[in-house]
């Protein structure tokens, strides 16, 4: 899984000041699910993303706590309203301490 943690962010190509922008993001991640043996869950250190944070110019705008009931290669979309140009940063944290970040620059047309 060499590409684990690859983050892709998609924003509209032209953004005007005050627009509500829809951002779509995807991270390559296995999101391991609980294994069972003889009907009992196996205790192991499952690897999945448990936290997603979105910050714009350092200010947090969205935080998500995710569970294993989210698909492999999780996809998230959300809206936000930029009032000034800046950098959108999406951070994914997984249970093995992995931190995966993606950024997108917001410029006004």
């Amino acid at each position: 899984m060499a590409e684990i943690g690859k983050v892709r962010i998609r924003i509209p190509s032209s953004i005007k000041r005050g627009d509500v922008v829809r951002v779509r993001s995807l991270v390559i991640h296995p999101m391991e699910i609980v294994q069972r043996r003889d009907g009992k869950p196996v205790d192991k250190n499952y690897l999945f993303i448990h936290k997603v944070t979105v910050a714009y110019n350092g200010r947090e705008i969205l935080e998500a706590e995710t569970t294993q009931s989210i698909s492999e290669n999780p996809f998230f979309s959300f809206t936000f309203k930029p009032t000034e140009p800046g950098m959108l940063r999406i951070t994914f944290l997984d249970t093995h301490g992995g931190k995966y970040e993606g950024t997108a620059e917001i410029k006004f047309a």
Partner: protein
Amino acid sequence: MGGDKEGIMTNVWMAGGRISRRGMLRALGLLGVAAAGGPFLAGAPGPALGQGNLGALQPEEKVDATMQRLFGGRPIKDGSNVIKLDLPLIAENGSVVPITVEVQSPMTPASYVKSIYIISDKNRRPLNARFSLTPDMGAASIGANLRLGETTNVRAIAELNDGTLLMAKREVKVTVGGCGG
């Protein structure tokens, strides 16, 4: 035409062959082949075997227990007129079920949606995700891909900043279960 499609598909990393063609095409369409990956840090190696995190996961329980744990006895109002739940009626593949939850809200500091919970009734661990929103988002709209173990009701619960709880739910028929957590 067919050849083009194959060409595009070779550019997509396949998740151990488990991602569906539909899911892959969807991801492609949404994100574009050329979307650049951002910088990332490699994941740290996990702790030694035998130190599982099973205990830290969401508990296996019935949906009623989840509701009780998350919301206590707080009343939950019907929010079907303000919450728009966009879900397929029939999900062929339970491991990738796209959902969009949109809550009508002015999203001003005085009145906004504080959190959105997505709960699947029949999953072993019913809570799918919890989103904490801020007024900076401009609109309360969240999309994600869920795993659903079987045909189930999916609920979206919105908590407003004044503490009001609103719920909307819809049934999704799942053809092939996705071992939903």
